[in-house]
Each structure stands twice: as structure tokens, then as C-alpha cells.
């Protein structure tokens, strides 16, 4: 098949080289953990603020990553930003923050402000989108982005680009027909896709036992001729290694992988949910599995991180997030007459999005 000509060996990668998020230098584990921790603290601070907005009636619908942060960050760190394409779902706030989305931009979205570069306030909170960072526009619909990610990987092959498509989704998404179709297509053509399942054991109220007859999502990889790994999604290094291996495999042209990250869902499904279907004990167990305290303890134990540094980080992060929130609050909603803009090509660009794209390109020029 002519396809063989187009497959190329990817550049060699060693496990703990972070070729992502603006740096491409080797990192030691401690530095990596600290990096993940900083992003997790940032995510938590943004999340806390969103719940406040929600309670104040300022943000209509809050989807929270609480419990998933470390899984999201450690996996997202394995991407080359703006090069690999990212296909997150609605819970992936920390994927966004890791890839370069700012808290200000997230608040613009959650508050439905005109400048929101993701959707101009058209989508619910955390529905990321950034052409510059190659983050595909998130929809609220479960699993629909999986075949799209596979198409992105297919495009990379046709265009001869060394780009991997990375796709995040919940355990609930594994029951959708498109998930099967997407994984199958990726497997047939050994496309560079990494499927990352953030398995929190619940699709809103529906427990895993009512979603699938087997215990492990990763076990399904075999049906698609790809490797499947299941790792503790609160173990930062384990997540990072598993995703890095899957990325390396994709870059070597060996095809897709499925990585299952087992995580707790600490909050209700969303700000609209009451979690009444879980027992007190179940909720407590989820809270006890919070990855943040664990990571903090790990950093302190390793040395090079102190209680004082930690307090400073949290305080500084909160202050920065509060400032971003205030800035976003001061922004206006979209002008009503804009409602039908961008249904089709040819409209003038969204001003703030265009500005970010220009700045991103300029930065890219400097770095390239």
C-alpha cells in the first residue's frame, strides 16, 4: 500500500524528556512533580472561584475537574503545544491550563463574556477552543470528538505532519457507538492517536457496573489492536510515564494507544447536580483520594519544597486568580447583534481571539 511510503519513524524520545508546554529540555522527577503541582494548585484556585461564581448566579453551569487535576496535567504535559492536537472534554480545565489557556480566558467563558476566545460566551464553562494551541473546540456531547480526533490524526498522516492527536474523555464515553468506531478506525490505520480515559467510575449517577460488564476500560484496547494501560490517575509520575509511552509509540508510527486513568470525582457531577445517589461513604472515599494533598506530601518528602514555599504558592496563585476573575467580570457580554456571526466563513474575526492568535504566532516565530 502507498501508505507505507508515508509512514515515517518519529524522533526518538526518552521517557522523562518533556517535549511539551514550551520546554524541550530533560527534567528531573522533582522538577516535573513541582510543575504538575503548580498547575494543580492553579486549577484548584480557578475551580474554587468558579463555584463561587456559580453560587452567585454569575456562572450558569460549572463543570469541575476536582480529583482529575493531576491526571489531566500530567497527561497534557506530554504534548508538544501547538503541534500535537488536543481533543479534551468538558471536564478538562487542567488540560487547558497546562497547554497555555489562562485563567482570565476561562473566566471570560464561564461568565459568558464577549471576549471569551473559546466560544465568545456561547458555550458552557470549560468548553475550550484554541486554534493556536491546537485545542479543538469542546462540545458538551459525550464521545462525539473521538472520531474527530481520529480524523485529525489521519490528516497528519496525509499531510506528512509529525503530529499526534490526543483525546480525553470520561468512562461514560466508552459506551457510545462512535467511541468504538473511532478506536477501530485508528487501529486499522495505525494512526497517531492517544486515547485517554479519565475513569471516575460514574456517568453522572450511573456507576461503572451499569455502564460496562467488565472492570477495566483499558482491557478494551485489545479489541482494536492497540495497547491499553490502566494507571492510578492520582499518581503524577505514573500518569506521565504512561502517556509519554503512548505518545512515543504514536510518534514512531506504531499506532494508537488507550490509557485509562483512574480518578476520583470529588464533587457532584456539576453545579446542577446534588450527588444524592452516592452514599456518604462513597463521597468521603472520593474526597480522600484527592490528588493534591498527596502530591504536596510527596514534594515535601522529596525535599526542595517547604511548607512556606507552599503557602506562598497558594497565596500567590489565589491572588492572581482573583485578579483574573475581577478583570473578566469587568468585561461586557457579547453584543446581541453578533448572535449569528460565524455561522459561515467570511465574517470578520473575533477580536480577542485574533489578538491571541497573532501574539501566539509572533511567539512561535521567535521560538522557531
Amino acid at each position, binding site marked *: 500500500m502507498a501508505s507505507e511510503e508515508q509512514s515515517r519513524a518519529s524522533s526518538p524520545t526518552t521517557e522523562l524528556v518533556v517535549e511539551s508546554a514550551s520546554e524541550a529540555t530533560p527534567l528531573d522527577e522533582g522538577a516535573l512533580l513541582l510543575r504538575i503541582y503548580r498547575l494543580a494548585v492553579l486549577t484548584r484556585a480557578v475551580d474554587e472561584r468558579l463555584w463561587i461564581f456559580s453560587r452567585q448566579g454569575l456562572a450558569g453551569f460549572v463543570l469541575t475537574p476536582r480529583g482529575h487535576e493531576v491526571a489531566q496535567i500530567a497527561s497534557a504535559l506530554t504534548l508538544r503545544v501547538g503541534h500535537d492536537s488536543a481533543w479534551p472534554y468538558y471536564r478538562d480545565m487542567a488540560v487547558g491550563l497546562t497547554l497555555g489557556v489562562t485563567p482570565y480566558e476561562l473566566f471570560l467563558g464561564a461568565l459568558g463574556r464577549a471576549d471569551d476566545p473559546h466560544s465568545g460566551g*456561547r458555550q458552557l464553562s470549560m468548553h475550550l477552543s484554541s486554534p493556536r494551541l491546537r485545542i479543538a473546540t469542546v462540545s*458538551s456531547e459525550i464521545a462525539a470528538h473521538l472520531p474527530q480526533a481520529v480524523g485529525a490524526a489521519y490528516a497528519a498522516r496525509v499531510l506528512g505532519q509529525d503530529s499526534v492527536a490526543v483525546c480525553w474523555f470520561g468512562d461514560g464515553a466508552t459506551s457510545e457507538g462512535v467511541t468504538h468506531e473511532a478506536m477501530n478506525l485508528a487501529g486499522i490505520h495505525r494512526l497517531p492517536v492517544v486515547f485517554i480515559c479519565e475513569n471516575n467510575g460514574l*456517568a*453522572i449517577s450511573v456507576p461503572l457496573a451499569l455502564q460496562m460488564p467488565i472492570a477495566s476500560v483499558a482491557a478494551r484496547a485489545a479489541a482494536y489492536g492497540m495497547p491499553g494501560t490502566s494507571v492510578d490517575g492520582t499518581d503524577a509520575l505514573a500518569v506521565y510515564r504512561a502517556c509519554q509511552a503512548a505518545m512515543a509509540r504514536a510518534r514512531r508510527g506504531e499506532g494508537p494507544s488507550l490509557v485509562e486513568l483512574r480518578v476520583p470525582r470529588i464533587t457532584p457531577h456539576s453545579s446542577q447536580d446534588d450527588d444524592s445517589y452516592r452514599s456518604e461513604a462513597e463521597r468521603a472515599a472520593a474526597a480522600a483520594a484527592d490528588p493534591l494533598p498527596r502530591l504536596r506530601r510527596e514534594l515535601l518528602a522529596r525535599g526542595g519544597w517547604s511548607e512556606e514555599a507552599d503557602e506562598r504558592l497558594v497565596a500567590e496563585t489565589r491572588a492572581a486568580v482573583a485578579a483574573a476573575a475581577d478583570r473578566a467580570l469587568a468585561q461586557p*457580554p457579547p*453584543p446581541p447583534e453578533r*448572535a449569528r456571526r460565524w455561522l459561515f466563513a467570511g465574517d470578520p474575526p473575533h477580536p480577542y481571539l485574533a489578538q491571541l492568535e497573532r501574539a501566539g504566532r509572533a511567539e512561535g516565530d521567535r521560538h522557531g
Partner: protein
Amino acid sequence: MVEHIAQPPAAPAEAGAVLTLVEAVRAALWEEMARDPRVIVLGQDVGRKGGVFKATQGLLAEYGPWRVLDTPISEAAIAGAAIGAAMMGLRPVAEFQFADYIHPAYDQIVNHAATIRWRSVGGWGVPVVFRAPFGAGVRGGVYHSQSVEALYCHIPGLKVVVPATPRDAKGLLKSAIRDDDPVLFFEHKWSYRRYREPVGGPDELIPIGQARLDRPGRDLSIITYGVGVHHARQAADALAAEGLLVEILDLRTLAPLDHEAIARTVRKTSKVLILHEANKTMGIGAEIAAFIAEELFLDLDGPIVRVAAADCHLPYNAAEEDAIIPNPDRVYQAALRLARF
């Protein structure tokens, strides 16, 4: 597992109970399940959670997990399993959590539920109800706001029902469950808890296919359904102040359309405004207008006006959403212009 089920609320009340639309839906389900052991409910979060809008609350505790099934996120299988179960004698009520997520099941509904009786010359039937909350105004964004009812009205073999009031919701859902053919049943979520009224008792069935004269009038007819009925009432009140008597026809069923009721109101007022929250282009208003322009041309005294959404997806932010969807004031303005034509 059972201990974590939300407290089962008391069984629904008798005739005359004053309920909201969503309570009326729940009452209809409850009563029909009590009456007929073949009735089952399936969908995402319908059991342990009782539905994201609580339309199925308490059913799991009352009727057990085989009759109240929490499904995986598999819309095509929800519809398909409901169809197969119906062919074998059950009366499934399949819930889609939001109408926006019914699309993955489109094939099962239009290529199968709609065709099975016809293609088997009556050998097999598909008594399924496909329920879904729909509609805008809740700041739900692209995927929690859609009006999808028109997408099923082009397909022979399907019935499409949209109740506007609690009483109709109860009586129509009961009729839909007892119907021997597939019925799409769309419940406007913005209206779920906004209005209360006395509902009928366990035996009140409201027939599918019959419109309801919501308000008699003289000068102009507003033909509408769902949340449109409430907008029309407000507009009509305001127009009464201008001396205009507006007739409101609540279609209740979009497929089959009640052509006779439409003809009656057109002949009476000679001026027609059609109102729906669905997009204007190819909304059911198109079919109603075409029917009138074809069959009642000589009865018309003015253009057929449509007030509907501005052919756009629906955003989360209020400013843009309000710019797109109809509201009582827009209905008032359009009706005034038409009345003066």
C-alpha cells in the same frame, strides 16, 4: 445500592391535583406503570438519580431496576432496545436526557421505529415513547437548548407531541404510552416548573392529533405549541388592550397536524401568525403556512406571518440567546403589524 436512592416521593395525586409540567410527566409515568406491567422506563440517570429534571423520581424504588433502567450513554441502543422490546410486547418509554442528544438515535427512530409496521405489512408494531426535555431560555448553550421536533415531522410513521400545559402533558403522555405506534414526546424544559394547574385523574387521556383552542378570538389567530402558548397568552393580553381579540390555537401534536382545527381558526380570523421557538426555516411553521396557502388561500386576508428563532444555534450567554428566540414582545409587535395589514 438501594439505600442511596433519593427518598421516594409519595405517589402522584388524584384528579385535580395542582402540578407543574414535570410533575405531571412523572405522574403520568407513575400511573401508567402501575396500570400496565408492560410499561418500562429507560435512559441515562432515570433510576438512582430520578432523572436530571426529576421526571422519573421515585420510580426505581417503586417499580424496581428491570422496569426502571439506568442505561449507559448509548442513545442508539436506548432507542434500539426500546424498539426491540416493544416488538416483543413491552411498552417502553425511552428518555433522552436532552433533546440535543437524541441525534445519535436518529437512525433507529427514522429508519426503524418509523418503518417497522409499514415494512412488515402490520406484522410488527413499535409502541415506544421517546421522551426528551427540549427548548431554550435556560442559558444551556448549544447542547442544552435545541428544538428538534421539526426533524421528525417529515418522516411517515411517527407521531410528534409537544404539550404546553401540565394537564396536557399528563393526558397526552398517557395517550402516547397507550398508543400502538412510536411517539416522540418533547417537554419544554423552561416550562417544566414555571406553571401549575390542576391535572386530570388516572383515566384522563388527551387524544393525540387534536389541537386545543387555548383562547377564542376574532381578529387574528396565533397558531403555536409548547412555550409558544405562554408567549402567545402574554402577547394576547397586551393586544387586548389595543382592542384586538386574538385567538390562540395550541397544536399539542405536530404530527399528525390537526388540519381541521387549523382550518377552523383561519376561516374565523383570516389572519395567521405562527409562533415557535424552533428555527424559522423548516420549522413546523413552514408546513402549517404551506398547508394554509394551499388549502385555505381564499380565506386569507393577509400574509402568513411566522415568529420563530432566527436560524441560529443557541448560546449560553443571555444577550445573544435573547436576540435569537421569540418572546412575548416580538409576538405582540408582529401581531400588531399583521392586524393592521
